[in-house]
């Protein structure tokens, strides 16, 4: 309790009484704006504090939001960045799995469409160790029934044949290798001729006489004469045609994407096969033997 000296009590009382009466006046007085003077005074007195309070609050809020509340922002940012990277990796994995699932679905569909043909799906786990040969390595081998000279295909077309079978892996010679060959024929004209690799992306159709009519874009399918691949599997399409002596120089673009193989099907038999025509590729629909198609030599190389 503040003690006021007795000689000052009357002064304090005077001040209080006058202030009270001034306030009393202010309550009664109206200015030009018809507002009470006490209201004007009150607003004038309070507004600076309100303004200061508002400014102080805004300053404090800004300080809090822009500084204190951001103390953990760096950690949060790092966490979010890590989470973002993880999610990106996860998305890439899922996209890969989705693509793989799509490919496997195609393989499964192909297998179901050719239920009479024994085959096993295999994953490509390796490629050619050098430029001298064009091969791939599969994750399945003899334990899965795979043996040498078995055909390897994809739903798109012929891939090659097994050249070595190990207990758990197998090595496949691609169709583009120089040593590779497949009994084939033109889907429309039924002209038979083996095709083989030349060590380049395009393969060669070797024994088509100059007199036979062949057009770029004609489809080439398996003839079954090599006793490795069943008839009517897509081999490729005619890409280039040059006159030769005595045979045309024909280059064929393989139907299967041999440069990006990931899953393949291995035909589990060494006996001649006949693909079910109802579910085969479009080429099988018009696949009919022609009399002049028999002059071609045997397909596969030894």
């Amino acid at each position, binding site marked *: 309790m503040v003690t006021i000296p007795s000689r000052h*009590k*009357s*002064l304090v*009382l*005077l001040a209080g*009484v*006058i202030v009270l*009466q*001034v306030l*009393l*006046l*202010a309550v*009664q*007085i109206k*200015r030009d704006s018809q507002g009470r*003077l006490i209201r004007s005074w009150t607003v004038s007195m309070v507004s600076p504090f309100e303004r200061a309070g508002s400014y102080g609050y805004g300053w404090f809020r800004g300080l809090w939001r822009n500084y204190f509340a951001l103390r953990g922002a760096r950690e949060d940012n790092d966490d979010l960045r890590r989470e973002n990277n993880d999610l990106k990796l996860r998305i890439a994995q899922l996209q890969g799995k989705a693509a793989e699932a799509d490919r496997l679905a195609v393989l499964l569909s192909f297998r179901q469409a050719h239920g009479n043909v024994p085959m096993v799906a295999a994953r490509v786990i390796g490629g050619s160790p050098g430029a001298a040969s064009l091969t791939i390595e599969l994750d399945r081998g003899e334990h899965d029934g795979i043996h040498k000279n078995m055909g390897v295909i994809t739903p798109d077309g012929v891939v090659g044949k097994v050249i070595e079978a190990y207990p758990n892996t197998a090595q496949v010679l691609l169709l583009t290798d120089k040593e590779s060959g497949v009994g084939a024929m033109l889907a429309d004209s039924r002209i038979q001729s083996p095709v083989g690799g030349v060590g380049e992306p395009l393969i060669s159709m070797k024994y088509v006489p100059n007199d036979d009519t062949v057009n770029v874009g004609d489809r080439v399918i398996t003839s079954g004469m090599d006793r490795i691949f069943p008839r009517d599997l897509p081999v490729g399409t005619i890409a280039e045609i040059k006159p030769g002596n005595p045979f045309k120089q024909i280059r064929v673009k393989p139907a299967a994407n041999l440069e990006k193989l990931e899953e393949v099907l291995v035909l589990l038999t060494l006996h001649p096969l006949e693909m079910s025509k109802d579910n085969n590729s479009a080429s099988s629909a018009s696949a009919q033997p022609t009399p002049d198609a028999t002059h071609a030599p045997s397909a596969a190389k030894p």
Partner: protein
Amino acid sequence: MNDAFDLRIGETHIEVHKFRAGAILIVTLLALVMQAWVPLRLPGAGLLDLPLLVTIYFGLSRRNPSTGLLLGMAIGLLQDSLSGPTVPLGLYGIAKTIIGYLASSIGARLDTEHPAARFALTAAFFVIHQAVIVLTRRILLAQPEPWFNLHLLAAAFLNAFLAVLIFLLLDRLRRPS
């Protein structure tokens, strides 16, 4: 009220007067009534400020600043109330509060029993009273009011002269010491 007693300030002994019971109240009410009534009957009586004279007298006599300012406040507020809606409550209240305080403070330090002192003090208080009113009107009411004119001077002397007479009458209301 109690009997009079001496107020000792330094070497000076100043007597503090007490009044008969109800004297202050009756005088105050009488002054207010006459202030409202006399100007209606007597032209020129508007220059008089009887409540102010009462405030000055009791302030000088009681010599207690607190009592003086409270009495001034009460008289002023009553005068405001009787002055109609054109005079806001507090206008005379503030002025007479200050006069009551000043009169009591001066009365405690000076001998104000002499008629000349009473005349001079009353004239001075009248001017101060008017100055406070003008100040209040200018600042609070935003009403332009002249600070000084001959009318004010005449009123000051008239009230001072009348105060000398009235104070003598009021002295009779004092309790004998």
